[in-house]
Every structure is written in structure tokens, then in C-alpha cells.
């Protein structure tokens, strides 16, 4: 019942998105725009500042992820469908998992575009250790989305939710972003510093475990008004 419900919610979100691709296209566009803005800030005399690529990649992910979170839950607010979901007999945490999987899929697509783009534009050897890069991206994105989905869901009924989402989310999520940036920067050094990257991957794993457990545990009481 739990995973079936999660799957249903995910499939529903994909079906909605497939009608217009609205969230996907706007998120991708915004992500690219972010990279360009940072390119102006971190490129000096035609050469990118050292290590800037890792930071730019993660900032673009965090910013576009926040935008996508807001849009996705705005959809559930319109017509109050979030309440209809909460009325379903399934454990409510299953709804959270469904929404989380949708966000992860969305950001995975964005990252598949962002990573090569940053690697090309900043002459960064991001793909020297493809497995580690994927691991870092997955770990960081999971941590970001775990907290982000919970907060966006609970803010659906709050006043000034647009402003409050980044305000609540960023302080808690920045450690995850730091771990992602440091880990990715380790991959960019010549030769790639595998040991450091793996250490940050471990920290990301710890964050993910804590954030996911807490979110699953607190989702039900947080969604009861």
C-alpha cells in the first residue's frame, strides 16, 4: 500500500508534467540562466576562477530546485488537491515519498543538462571520475529534496509561502550544499582527490539518512492542521 501510493502520486505528477512540461522547461531555463549569471561573476579575463565550477553547479541546482519545489506544490494548492491526497487512506508519509521521487526525477534531468554545460563552459574536468560525480550529485540532491519537499508541503497552507520556503530551507540545507561543493571541487583538482570526495560522499550519506528519517517521521503530524 505504501509504495503503491507513492508510485501513484509519482505517476500522476509525471502525467501532469507530460501535458505541458511547464515545470521542467522553466526549471531548466532558470538553471541555465543561473549558470550564466555566475559565469559573469567568476570569469576573469576569459579564464574561470579556480574551483568556481563546483560552486556554480551546486548553486544552480539549489536555486532551480527551490523554484521547482514552489511550482510543484503550487499545483497541489490549486484546487486544494493536496487535501484530497491527504484524505486518501494510505499512510500520509507515502504521499511525501511520491512527491519526493517526482522532485528527484526533475532535478536529475536538470543536472544531466547542468553538469556537462558547466564542465564545458568552465573547462572543468567534472567527468574525470563519473561515478563519484554521480554519487555526489545523487547524495546532495536527495538531501536537498528530502527537506525541501517536506517544507514546501507544510508551507502550502502558510501565509507568504513563497518567501518562507527559501528562508526556512537554505540555512538547514547549506551544509549539504557545502558537502556537495567541497566533494565536487576535490574531483576537479589534478589529479582528482578521490579520498576527499569519498569522505564528503560519506557526509552526504549521513545527512540524507538523518533528513529522510526525520521527514518521514514528522510528515504526518506536520500536515494535520
Amino acid at each position, binding site marked *: *500500500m505504501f509504495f*503503491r*501510493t507513492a508510485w*501513484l*502520486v509519482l505517476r*500522476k505528477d509525471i*502525467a*501532469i508534467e507530460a*501535458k*505541458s512540461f511547464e515545470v521542467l522547461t522553466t526549471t531548466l531555463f532558470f538553471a541555465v540562466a543561473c549558470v550564466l549569471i555566475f559565469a559573469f561573476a567568476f570569469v576573469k579575463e576569459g579564464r574561470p576562477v579556480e574551483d568556481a565550477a563546483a560552486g556554480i553547479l551546486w548553486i544552480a541546482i539549489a536555486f532551480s530546485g527551490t523554484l521547482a519545489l514552489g511550482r510543484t506544490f503550487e*499545483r497541489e494548492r*490549486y*484546487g*486544494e*488537491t493536496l*487535501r*484530497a*491526497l*491527504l*484524505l*486518501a*487512506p*494510505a*499512510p*500520509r508519509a507515502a504521499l511525501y515519498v511520491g512527491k519526493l521521487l517526482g522532485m528527484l526525477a526533475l532535478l536529475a534531468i536538470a543536472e544531466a543538462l547542468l553538469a556537462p554545460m558547466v564542465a564545458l563552459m568552465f573547462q572543468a574536468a567534472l567527468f574525470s571520475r563519473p561515478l563519484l560525480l554521480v554519487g555526489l550529485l545523487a547524495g546532495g540532491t536527495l538531501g536537498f529534496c528530502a527537506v525541501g519537499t517536506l517544507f514546501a508541503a507544510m508551507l502550502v497552507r502558510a501565509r507568504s509561502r513563497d518567501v518562507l520556503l527559501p528562508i526556512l530551507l537554505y540555512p538547514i540545507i547549506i551544509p549539504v550544499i557545502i558537502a556537495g561543493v567541497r566533494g565536487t571541487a576535490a574531483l576537479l583538482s589534478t589529479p582528482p582527490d578521490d579520498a576527499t570526495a569519498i569522505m564528503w560522499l560519506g557526509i552526504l550519506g549521513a545527512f540524507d539518512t538523518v533528513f529522510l528519517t526525520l521527514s518521514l517521521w514528522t510528515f504526518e503530524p506536520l500536515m*494535520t*492542521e
Partner: protein
Amino acid sequence: MDVTVGVDFDSVQLVDVSRHFGRRRALANISLTAGAGDIVGLLGPNGAGKSTLITLLATLAAPSKGEVRYGGQPASRLGPALRTRIGLLAHELHLYPELSARQNLVFFAELYGLDPRGLVDAALESAGLTDRADDAVNGFSRGMRQRLALERALLHRPRLVLFDEPFTGLDDHAVGLIADRLRALAAAGAIVVLATHDLDLADGLVTRVALIRNGRLISDEPAAPGLRARYRAQVGAH
């Protein structure tokens, strides 16, 4: 689906329920019982607390004080399975406008663990939307959406049927259809709670009348002719 087994009830009881948001009182010390076959009209002006009451009954919110009991049991003891027996049609329609009528119904049927085959076609037919089944909901008129939302809320044959202002923006024909549907549900043993500020529609439909003003229950009695006059006397001063 195994979670539904064993959860059913034939009465809903509010025991001294209060709900407030900080300094604003939405409901104060409401006690009310509704049984199978009842169509309880929650009447009162806008902002009287009707919607809050419906939300509490739907388990979407918890009372600040007091308890809501389903067949004598508090909601906390019944768990998620309780929600298989509750259906809610609110003013906001609980439909995904991007999806088609059929997609909406299939999604919610599966969410309730039901087999969508047959069930969804029957629902589409009773909403009169069989030939528009695969059109996106955002192309529908208010009346069509409302009919679809009604079928969506009743897909899982709930025992407790909650309606929050279901007649807004509907023409007489559509109102008649919904009223007939409500009577049929009550006759089949459902507990129907209907919140509305529209007296003309409530008159002749409801079997019990609960008047609410400023979050307080000011009367609770069987429906009788002359609803309007009594409403005037008790609420009209507002």
C-alpha cells in the same frame, strides 16, 4: 484492500469541540451527533465556522479542544483506514485541471485501492461526461467540473459524506441532480453533512438543521416547514 476491513461506523459525534486560530475563534463548544440516513444541514452566514467544522469531520484538522468520534471511537484510534469511509466535496474541487476527467477518476480510484475498471466508466456516466471523458478538466464548465468532483468524492462509497457549499455557481438543473444524489445516498445509509448558506436549497432537502453563528451552535433540530422564518429569527439579526 486489507486496510478497510473492520472500519465502519453508523454515527458521527462531535463532543464539545472547539477550534481556534490564535485569537480568532472558529468553533466553540460544539456538540452534535449525526446518524446513518441523516442529511444534516449546517446553516449559517459566511465565516460562521461551517468549513472548519467540515475540515474537522474530514480528519484534515484536529480540534483544539474536544473530540470527534466515529461510531464512538476517536479518529486517532482508527488510523488511516478511517479515511476510506469519508468523502469530501469542498468548494475547491480537488481535481487536477491538467488531467482528463478519466485520468482524475482513475488516479483517485487507485489511490483508494479500488479497481478503476467499470467503476470509472460508471462514474463518468453518472456525471454525464462519457463523451468528454478524455478531455482535460480545465476545458470544462463549472457545472461539469462540479459533477465530476461529486463523482470523485463518492467513488469509494463513503459512509460519511461531507459537502461544503456544493451548489455555488450551479444552475437549477445541476442543483436538482445533486440534491437527488444526496437523498439517494442518505437512503442507502450514508451520513450526509451539508454546509451551506443557501436556505432555499437546504429547505426540503435536509432532515436535520444545525444553525451556526460565530462558531457557536445556536440550534439543532429536525427539519420542519418554515425554515426560513426561524433562520431569520435566530441568525437574521446578524
